[in-house]
């Protein structure tokens, strides 16, 4: 028996909501949404954790300009509080090096992170997921019983097609889907609401392509003031305004 599996739920017992930010493919802005959502929630007065589970390509630390901080040991690992967010990522242990990890080792690493990390009391734990429906997605569903998914897509037909698969799988497994955010929305968008409406996922809103976003990467103040953050806030208003993190959108 793997003794780690007995205490993952214990580690999350004081976390009110666990929101996995996911999408069907890479490059659609999951990490930007995750990091910005965490910032917006923290600035709204919530207690927030951010877990970067994109093991092979972690990037939320880059978006939030996090460097020079490390977890502390206290009967496990306590993530540092950065910009008002409890932040956990493989980067504390892998540094700037590539992390070529696959298969069962990805699962083992996720189990290990969930086992050792002491989040304490949080209103929201935001998880930046890697693309697709592979090991990390299945592990999060397997080990985090109260997880809900916030699905991100772009108006690209390719992205919509891959996100459709993710949504179908989540629906089949009965996993709650908070809603869908359309990132990099273009005036000519055909309307992903129509495309994905038959799957019964609420479209929470769209975020226009923000040319200034790249300038805000690494600078939390600029990020919080960006059009991207403002439109994300509008799309997720009901989540952000909730007190106590009890109800869903």
């Amino acid at each position, binding site marked *: *028996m*793997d*003794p*780690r*599996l*007995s*205490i993952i739920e*214990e580690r999350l017992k004081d976390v009110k909501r666990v929101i996995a930010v996911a999408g069907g493919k890479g490059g659609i802005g999951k990490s930007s949404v995750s990091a910005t959502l965490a910032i917006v929630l923290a600035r709204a007065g919530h207690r927030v954790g951010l877990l970067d589970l994109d093991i092979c390509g972690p990037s939320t630390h880059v978006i939030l300009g996090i460097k020079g901080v490390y977890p502390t*040991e206290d*009967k*496990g*690992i306590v993530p540092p509080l950065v910009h008002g967010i409890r932040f956990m990522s*493989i980067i504390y*242990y*892998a*540094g700037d*090096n*590539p*992390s*070529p*990890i*696959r298969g*069962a*080792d*990805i699962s*083992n*690493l996720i189990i*290990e*992170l969930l*086992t*050792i990390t002491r989040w304490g009391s949080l209103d929201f734990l935001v998880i930046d997921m890697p693309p697709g429906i592979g090991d990390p997605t299945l592990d999060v569903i397997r080990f985090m019983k109260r997880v809900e998914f916030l699905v991100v897509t772009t108006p690209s037909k390719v992205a919509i097609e891959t996100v459709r698969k993710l949504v179908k799988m989540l629906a089949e497994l009965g996993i709650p889907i908070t809603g869908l955010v359309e990132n990099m929305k273009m005036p000519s968008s055909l309307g992903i609401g129509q495309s994905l409406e038959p799957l019964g996922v609420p479209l929470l809103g769209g975020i226009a392509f923000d040319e200034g976003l790249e300038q805000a990467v690494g600078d939390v103040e600029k990020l919080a003031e960006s059009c991207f953050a403002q439109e994300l806030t509008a799309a997720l208003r009901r989540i952000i305004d909730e007190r106590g993190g009890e109800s869903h959108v």
Partner: protein
Amino acid sequence: MHEWALAEGVVATAIKVAEREGLREITEIRVKIGELQQTDMEVFEFALKEIVRLQSALLRRARFLFEHEPAVLKCRVCGTEWAFKDALKKLDEEQSESIHFLPETAHVYVRCPNCHSPDFEVTKGRGVWLESISGEK
């Protein structure tokens, strides 16, 4: 894995098994510890004692037996097998510490001694395993 988290997991799992098996007292817990984990046994045993002390009578007399398994790595590309302890000699303190906290970061710092690939599997000596528990019904 941090030793305290590991100890918590061992005790929680033993209690679950005892409840499932209808044991009123656990007398022995056998734990296998992989070398890759680089567990500090002094800290681990101290954590176990402290956690057990806070538990019900179920575990008060439990004896812990540990089996240590050396870690063996096998390259998926060229098939070379090598001992983790040999790889460890080439790592600095920070790299070794990272693997201690998150064993899979071995893939970040260790390379196949033959073809230098990071694509290897840990065929033995990974993780901690609760081998068995014995007790009285």
